[in-house]
């Protein structure tokens, strides 16, 4: 399985290659786009201006292209807003053509209309179906085959069983297409499948998250909330826990959950001197064995705009976990070794896959 890491700037490319990343994804938003649409109609899902989460100017893409040429680790560009408005399709096609001219051939796309438009315009780029598109099942993958997909990125709430089933269906279809009894379809013609493995485990599903992400306001899902009864007089009946609204602390459930995300409530021994804690905001490392078994080809390590040092440590840890996987003969052995090597104290328990 290859490591696909988020890239926040060109500076990070060489460092992350040295750390063990196999490929990257990043955003490019030209000034002309930001000027016209600001963060109202963003080009990708990093819907902010005040953070270094995009690669920057076209000149930076040229630098990145030179780096890719030297190191051979490809970069995919994200154009994965959930939808666009009619005038934008032509504009995006022009941007993509320009990027293809300097060697960027693969694009992460969520909007079916954009995929359709690119194919209608005979733009022969690689399309990676974004994890932000919709529910991913084998019927959905079949549906989007007409857009000639190179890769399907599973969303954060696909189970490993889901993935295994979707991939098995696809491999069977490929075999059928190859018209051969033996599975001899060239590797490069096979569809790739990518799964989330580290960081940013969202509470809601990207494809179905339509609320604002912008500089001037926080995420809607982080607005304070309380668990309450629907009807007057009816009291919440909990099952496994004794729920008390912590009114004496003035904290809402949202506050408490933020604290869970905060390193201060995580086991002290598990974070390093800089406050780094592997998988603090989302982790699927202990599922690597099953992910491999299910046929996943690429592992998504999100975190564009995170501290570069932390991302580098994430990549090193993921690489280490993959090395452990390679030398493990069973899932049990893998988990034991992973725990000993990477989580000798505790993990975050923010699990992608349970």
């Amino acid at each position, binding site marked *: 399985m290859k490591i696909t890491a988020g890239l926040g700037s060109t500076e990070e490319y060489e460092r992350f290659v040295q750390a063990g990343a196999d490929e990257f994804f990043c955003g490019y938003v030209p000034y002309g786009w930001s000027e016209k649409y600001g963060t109202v109609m963003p080009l990708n899902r990093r819907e902010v201006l005040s953070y270094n989460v995009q690669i920057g100017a076209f000149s930076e893409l040229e630098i990145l292209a030179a780096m890719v040429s030297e190191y051979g680790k490809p970069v995919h560009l994200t154009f994965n807003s959930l939808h666009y*408005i009619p005038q934008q399709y032509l504009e995006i096609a022009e941007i993509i053509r320009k990027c293809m001219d300097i060697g960027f051939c693969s694009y992460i796309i969520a909007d079916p209309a954009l995929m359709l438009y690119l194919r209608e315009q005979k733009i022969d780029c690689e399309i990676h179906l974004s994890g932000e598109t919709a529910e991913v099942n084998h019927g959905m993958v079949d549906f989007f085959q007409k857009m000639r997909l190179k890769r399907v990125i599973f969303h954060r709430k696909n189970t490993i069983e889901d993935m295994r089933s979707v991939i098995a269906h696809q491999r069977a279809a490929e075999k059928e297409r190859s018209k051969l009894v033996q599975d001899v379809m060239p590797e490069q013609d096979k569809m790739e499948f990518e799964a989330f493995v580290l960081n940013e485990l969202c509470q809601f599903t990207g494809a179905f998250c339509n609320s604002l992400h912008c500089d001037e306001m926080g995420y809607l899902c982080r607005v304070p909330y309380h668990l309450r009864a629907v009807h007057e007089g009816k009291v919440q009946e909990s099952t496994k826990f004794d729920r008390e609204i912590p009114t004496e602390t003035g904290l809402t459930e949202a506050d408490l959950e933020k604290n869970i995300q905060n390193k201060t409530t995580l086991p002290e021994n598990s974070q390093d001197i800089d406050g780094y804690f592997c998988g603090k905001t989302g982790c699927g490392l202990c599922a690597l064995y099953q992910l491999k078994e299910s046929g996943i080809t690429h592992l998504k390590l999100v975190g564009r705009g995170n501290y570069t040092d932390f991302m580098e440590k994430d990549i090193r840890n993921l690489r280490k976990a993959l090395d452990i996987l390679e030398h493990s003969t069973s899932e049990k052995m893998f988990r034991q070794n992973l725990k000993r090597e990477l989580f000798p104290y505790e993990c975050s328990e923010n699990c992608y896959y349970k």
Partner: protein
Amino acid sequence: MKIINGIHMIPFGLLAGFADDKEIRITELARNGFQFRTVQDMTDVGSFRLCFYDDRKAAYREIFITDFILQKEQKEKFYTVYSVFTKQEDFKKESQGLAFRYSQYILLKMEEDDSLLAEKLTGYPAEEDEIFADNLEQQKKEWFQDVPVEKLAGALKEAPEFALELDHPALYEKYLKEDLFVFLKDYWVRNGFPEVLSEVAPDRLYIGNQFCHLLLPEEKKLFRLMEKTYREKCRITLVYTYIREDMLKTTEDLLEKVDKWCKERQISIEVVANDWAMVEMLKNYQERLVPVMGTLLNKRKKDPRMKYKKGDRSLYEENSLNAEFYNKFLREECNIWRYEWESCGYAQKFPNVLKGRNSLHFPFYQTNTSQYCPLYAMCTEGKRGKQELIRMCPHFCEQNALLYPKHLHMAGRYNSLFGVDTEVLGSPEKLRAYVEAGIDRLVLGLS
């Protein structure tokens, strides 16, 4: 010459640059100049254009630098660094302004929570984030208390088609137990409206849930619901949500049975698709099962805080369905002619080519959905983030909800968050305006 005390790597979204026509990134910005880097040799530049973002106006201010000294600095492996020195006053002013705003923003992010940050930047009423209703019923009473009932009844009667949503188990049960009129009376009253509204009978029932796969009626109940709806001479829209991989087979089997049921009665029904696999499946039943594009596939920005959003909000009026090439694809390849829209607090333009084939759901609109249930996680683990796939759902959502600050007009129901467009109920003439704008069906969902 040297760049003095510059700020490194200001995000490109805040500070963009051009060397003549070439888009460049400013890697350092100081009072006396700036640095940039390129792969190419850049010794011959006529002018620079710098674009400074002003978050107060959500717009850029551009300045041209024509009076400058360009100096080649170090050559790195992949690029060359250049310094540009200028004494232009407009450059100084804009550089200082941006540096100040940027440092203020970082300070706010470091020191304030999201509400206070929003208050400082947009006027968002942070202190109101602490005011909650006691329960959802009370919250709904407040939302719906000022609805002009007569006007609402009038707007519903005048609508080309009026539909009602049956979207969760308690409602399915109730509808099965009572005749339509009694059911409607109870429905309105339970939601804080006078029973006089029950005189407005729906032409159609939406059966099922667009957002949660665990809220679809089980098979037997579904057919009982359809049978009763058919007997009561209401048209039927069967509502599906996303289809998880392990549900594909049972869904297909069920569609076959529904098709058979329709065949026996010589009718066709609509099926709301919120999954691309479902769109594909429905191609096999074109004669009797009419596909409709559901809310989860008809995407747009929706947020109860929209009025605080900076920038040109009129851009929100359209989405991908306003693009003719996409419409054509959906019509010709997917047999989709009808779209489900939501009243979400701002004006929308509905596709002209489909005038008369647009349903509007009101007053609630979905903003966020999770296939794993946040409410279940809250009720069992005490933490909304501790989600996992639910196999056996005890329907905590029948008794519990997530309440949000009153001023936001939103609630967390089952696996989703919803905003409520109180204006569309408070001013029912807005419903008439929707009809004039291309909506031919109003779909009410109050619970």
